[in-house]
């Protein structure tokens, strides 16, 4: 008796599973998006709005990181592969080649900018840094008197006497993060160029990317909220995170001026703020018309309601392109222009 019910239950569940697995063979009717965690808040906002206002299903958005997204996106054509990937950097040549080899045609859509700020608690001193000072504070090795030595700077005032007499303590994202990639590429590499004698000692390009590991820079995890919380309890520390987190926490946090430019919305939009990067999403052309709604999704993303001056993406912290750039992007995107490299 006992055994019979048991076998019966097992058989029923097995049958049920087979049925549901069989159901998976139907064509996918839902857009699948992967990619950058920086673009994630914007992509999801558009996806939600798209789901509410059109007859299509709400797209599924996964946060896999820019690199992980590209890997999935470029792995092939077919409904088991994603239709769109978000990226907080431009597609690399190697990734493009892989995509092309797998028969994928790509349309690139640039959606706006993201600023990377050096934020600190309102209770801490104001910081006005140049990129070179940022480099001198954070690089693993810096030139001193014509020689390359392990970073000797303990206080900000060691770099420049006009800076506050305060221990250098910077919380930032780990190397797996796109924010970290962009920060070392723009701030560290940019700062490196301005340091006298750095180039002669071989400090250029990638050599500038190495961040010190003597405790002055703390890897605080991928979660920007966590960095903000830690800064709140430690007013002397400085954190590296995305502008949208500064925007949301403006009552507790302030951003350091970089090269004299404050970390403000307008300054980033105008391109005056030096540490900013472009955000993109990439569309698989072969899926347009196969997976329903991709064209409409592009239209929603590039609509004035979304990324325009008063759009909802700006409320989420996106820094928009200029009017002219937006118009040009809309044309290229809705015309599904192919990317070539």
């Amino acid at each position, binding site marked *: 008796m006992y055994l019979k019910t048991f076998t019966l*239950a097992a058989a029923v569940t097995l049958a049920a599973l087979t049925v*549901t697995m069989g159901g998976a063979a139907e064509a996918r009717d839902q857009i699948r998006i992967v990619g950058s965690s920086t673009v*994630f808040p914007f992509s999801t906002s558009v996806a939600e709005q798209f789901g*509410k206002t059109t007859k299509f299903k709400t797209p599924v958005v*996964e946060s896999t990181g820019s690199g992980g997204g590209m890997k999935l996106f470029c792995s092939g054509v077919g409904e088991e592969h994603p239709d769109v990937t978000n990226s907080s950097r431009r597609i690399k040549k190697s990734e493009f080649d892989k995509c092309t080899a797998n028969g994928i045609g790509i349309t690139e859509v640039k959606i706006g900018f993201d600023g990377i700020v050096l934020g600190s608690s309102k209770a801490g001193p104001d910081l006005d840094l140049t990129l070179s000072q940022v480099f001198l504070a954070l690089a693993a090795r810096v030139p001193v008197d014509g020689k390359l030595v392990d970073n000797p700077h303990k206080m900000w005032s060691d770099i420049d006497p006009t800076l506050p007499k305060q221990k250098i303590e910077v919380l930032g994202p780990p190397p797996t993060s796109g924010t970290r990639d962009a920060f070392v590429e723009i701030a560290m590499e940019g700062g490196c160029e301005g340091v006298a004698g750095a180039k002669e000692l071989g400090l250029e390009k990638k050599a500038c990317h190495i961040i010190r590991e003597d405790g002055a820079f703390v890897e605080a995890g991928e979660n920007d*909220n966590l960095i903000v919380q830690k800064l709140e309890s430690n007013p002397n520390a400085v954190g590296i995170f995305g502008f949208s987190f500064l925007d*949301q926490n403006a*009552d507790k946090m302030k951003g350091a001026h970089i090269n004299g430019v404050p970390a403000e919305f307008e300054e980033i939009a105008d391109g005056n703020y030096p540490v900013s990067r472009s955000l993109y999403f990439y569309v698989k052309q072969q899926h347009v018309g196969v997976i329903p709604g991709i064209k409409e999704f592009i239209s929603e993303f590039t609509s004035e309601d979304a990324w325009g001056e008063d759009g909802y993406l700006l409320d989420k912290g996106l820094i928009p392109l200029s009017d002219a750039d937006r118009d040009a992007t809309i044309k290229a995107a809705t015309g599904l222009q192919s990317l070539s490299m």
Partner: protein
Amino acid sequence: MTDLAAIPVSQRKPDLSEAQLRRRYRAEARFRLYGVAAILFAVGILALLLGSIVSTGFSAFTQTEIALDIELDPATIDPAGARDPDVLASANYRKIVRAGLTELFPDVSGRRTKRDLNRLISSGADLTLRDRVLANPSIIGTTLRIWVKSSADIDSFNKGQIPRDVVEADRRVKDNQITWFDALAADDRVRRSFNTTLFTAGDSREPEQAGIWGAAVGSFLTLIVTLALSFPVGVMAAVYLEAFAPKNRWTDLIEVNINNLAAVPSIVFGLLGLAVFLNFFGLPRSAPVVGGTVLALMTLPTIIIAGRAALNAVPPSIREAALAMGASPLQAITHHVLPLAMPGILTGTIIGMARALGETAPLLMIGMVAFIVDIPRTFTDPATVLPVQVFLWADAPERAFVEKTSAAILVLLAFLIAMNLAAVILRKKFERRW
């Protein structure tokens, strides 16, 4: 009195002096104190953890609402007057809601100021109104006082999470919005009511519209698959190994492997799931059927180990008595040993399930860490699970998600406590001691 040192060691008597006795009592008191201190420390840490979660999460169970007098103009909602649901569903409710708001503050002009005013209420307010109208079309043509959700920023402001006393530029809520809000409050148009959305909606990018129901259903579907696969397989394996398998090198090897498998980090099962179920079998990404299968692999060793322990605890006399009365070995197991071992097996299963409920790492690899708005209905619909929802909300920049995160943790904890309680009750009720 004899000299102590003069007596050989083997003849030494216990030292019963006053001082030695006191020392022994003190040692015992100290030992107990350490025990109590250890327990107090553990309880204190737990209280701290729960306290911080409850104190931040508690406010998420309420939501600020604003009352608007909304004129449901038939010309806007249903110009033809046919009450066709399609027409009713696609009417411009946003305009109607905004008109209701403008009516309260008629002297607000200018595009930017109007935008600030509209930001008092949630962008989902039009959907609330639409649902009201669809549920009861007869309200068209009347003017109703309707409570709509406030926006997340206003909600945080009302809960005191956005302070009034900082410079306007540093606040998400502007001075004019505060003036309007105070006017509404003075007019009894503001209230805090229980946040049902949190328990009925799927995920959303707007904190006031976000809910955990989608994730809860996802967890439920995933756990059904996990249970359906791991329980029968686990019990069969345990029964065979315990009652039928010969004791030789092979079964020893299998046993060692099962024990090792129980200690494998869960992310490894995720990678396996990616390689086998997604890439080889071509099952859909983000689906509970894949998540459940991966978690079943993870839970299987736990169930087998618990099952074997429970079967082992049944006295051999029961089985021997059954065999002596002429039962076949199969009958002895299924009629006598297995039912007696069931409470122990079920306890192990529930504990394994509770672990599966709290797991995120293996689901990352198979695409269940995703933004999913629609509530899943089948095993192949894209879905996410409760701990993943916690993870996603903790990562969101919007301030209002902080309290939502803690609220989601509380709900997850409630589920876990319920499951563990069920395990305890099962054990208490059915367990037999010999």
